[in-house]
């Protein structure tokens, strides 16, 4: 029986151009055996929701370095829910001040990985979160 590989979307929300972290995580997740789709820069909330739906992913990951994560995630949440992706694993990484973590969790982001998080922690979290 061949098991379907876990499929992950990594997206760069908004106008932030700092993509080194996103690309590094894409490589780490691919090395861990996941199938990874990377959106590239400047994604709108609508584009992220569409990509997640079209690619039929198990995990939706955002990488945000320039501070606009909260307004973006507030817009993204209803779009993902409307697309029937509320049961997928939502992650966010990057420059995420501790004071924002509670709201990100409340918005449905179960995995929060501030910059300098370990690859192994992200991989383990995904394996545990996608059954």
């Amino acid at each position: 029986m061949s098991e379907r590989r876990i499929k992950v979307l990594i997206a760069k929300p908004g106008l932030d151009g700092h993509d080194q972290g996103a690309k590094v995580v894409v490589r780490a997740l691919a090395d861990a055996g996941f199938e990874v789709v990377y959106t590239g820069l400047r994604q709108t909330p609508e584009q992220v929701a569409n990509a997640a739906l079209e690619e039929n992913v198990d995990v939706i990951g955002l990488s945000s370095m320039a501070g606009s994560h909260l307004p973006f995630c507030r817009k993204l949440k209803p779009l993902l829910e409307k697309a029937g992706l509320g049961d997928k694993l939502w992650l966010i990484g990057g420059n995420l001040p501790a004071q924002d973590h509670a709201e990100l969790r409340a918005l449905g982001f179960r995995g929060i990985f501030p910059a300098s998080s370990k690859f192994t922690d992200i991989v383990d979290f995904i394996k545990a979160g996608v059954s």
Partner: protein
Amino acid sequence: MSKDNVKKSVINESGIEIKPLYSAEDVAATGGAAMLGLPGEYPFTRGIHPQMYRKQPWTMRQYAGFGNPADTNKRFKYLIANGQTGLNVAFDLPSQIGLDSDDPMAEGEIGRVGMSIDSLKDFEIAFDGIDLNKITVSLTINGAAAIMIAMYLAMAEKKGYDITKLRGTAQNDILKEFIGRGTWIFPVEPSIKLVGDTIEYCAKEAPKYSPVSICGYHIRESGATPAQEMAYAFAIGKAYIAEVTKRGLSVDDFANRLSFNFNIYGNLFEQVAKFRAGRGLWAKVLKDQCHAKDPDSMVMRMIAGGGGGGLTFEQPELNIVRGAYYALISALSGTQTMALCSYDEAYTIPTEYSARISLRTMQILIEEMGLCDTVDPIGGSYFVETLTNQMRAKMEEHMAEVEAEGGMVKMVAEGAIQSKVSRQAYEMQRNIQTGVFRKVGVNCYRIDEEEHEVAFHPYNEADARAQIASLNEVRRNRDGQAVAKALKQVETDAKSNRNVMPALMAAVKAYATVGEMTQALVAAYGRYREPIRF
């Protein structure tokens, strides 16, 4: 230390093996003093001026800008009052990628990472009360650089400055934006054409203005080694020179206004050797490959600063110490301009307090540590001279690799350079996470940290609304027909492959907005599509 504990092999980030001891033989074996010379003379390895800091210390130019132009003007004046000698302007992301503040994509981003600019009016406010003959201004702008240079020159002209004498710099290095930083707008070819337009225009109309600062900095941040940082920047520099000389200008008409922006984090000796080697190599490239005749065209002028990639989220106060070493590296390297990332900059826009610490760090080197007393103070060290020779050879290797792959423009357009440096960034990150590459506070000497002592810069929704209101006021009060005509001219000139700078100057003076001018250029050039390649 017992014999077993002696490190068997030490290899620097650029891939050069470091020996436990160096002597005159090592210098001779790597090329001797053939590329050394005297400061102020070809090949400028020891520095670009005979007297260097004895005559004038480096310019101190902290990166600053946030909120509305009035907020930024206040921070500029604070930094100047504290002894800063130049300005380094941060723009918000909508301004950087050519969106007006009322564009739906700009929501939540207005004034967040830099100041918000919609029209000439904003430039007038931002530089109000600042003497532009005394304080030189560097604009950290790339995708929208042609527009912002036009705005800066128009603002200066309006305030009564003679733009033929005006000094200043724009970053305007679009090729590196495709590799890292990501504020591109147009496809690769027209983007290079626009850089050429600014160089050509400034060579004729504003000959003291430096229209381009070629950045190894962000390529290094994206994963390049120190030797690659220099080599790739030089390859980019050559691409811009080719763009302008093909229009009939001589390299000596403009090369002396090209400058560079480099990074300073990492091993101290490797960085200092990198800069000394880089000066020699750029001089050689200009002379031998670009056929410059004027020695002034061969000079590698630089801002060496930042160091963001070396700073850590963990134990952020350690970044003050790192910043001090980075400043030392920059001073020992003979930089023209210095800026330091502040200790809280890994998290947020620096506070006045943290920005002042960065400024004082540089001032301590100038006033207390004797860094300005003598030129190239570590020149002549067997180790430094050997490493300088080796770093130059390594950079030449990387430049040759780029040539062999079809040149920098092709590699950027195909995503090949992006893929290479991002793979290296991944390997480095893995080495940090596994402790192979040591990082204090990160993979050794960690402490349990609950909350970091960092004050976050707040995002102000009211400021964003005020900026949009101000933009609407500009739109109401200007001559709409004149604006439409000026924008049409921008589009026509872009489509017919003419230099767009005169048309942009006219549009700026009619108070056309950044978004409108960008749209006019997009109508001619289209938009860039990022190659996704791993």
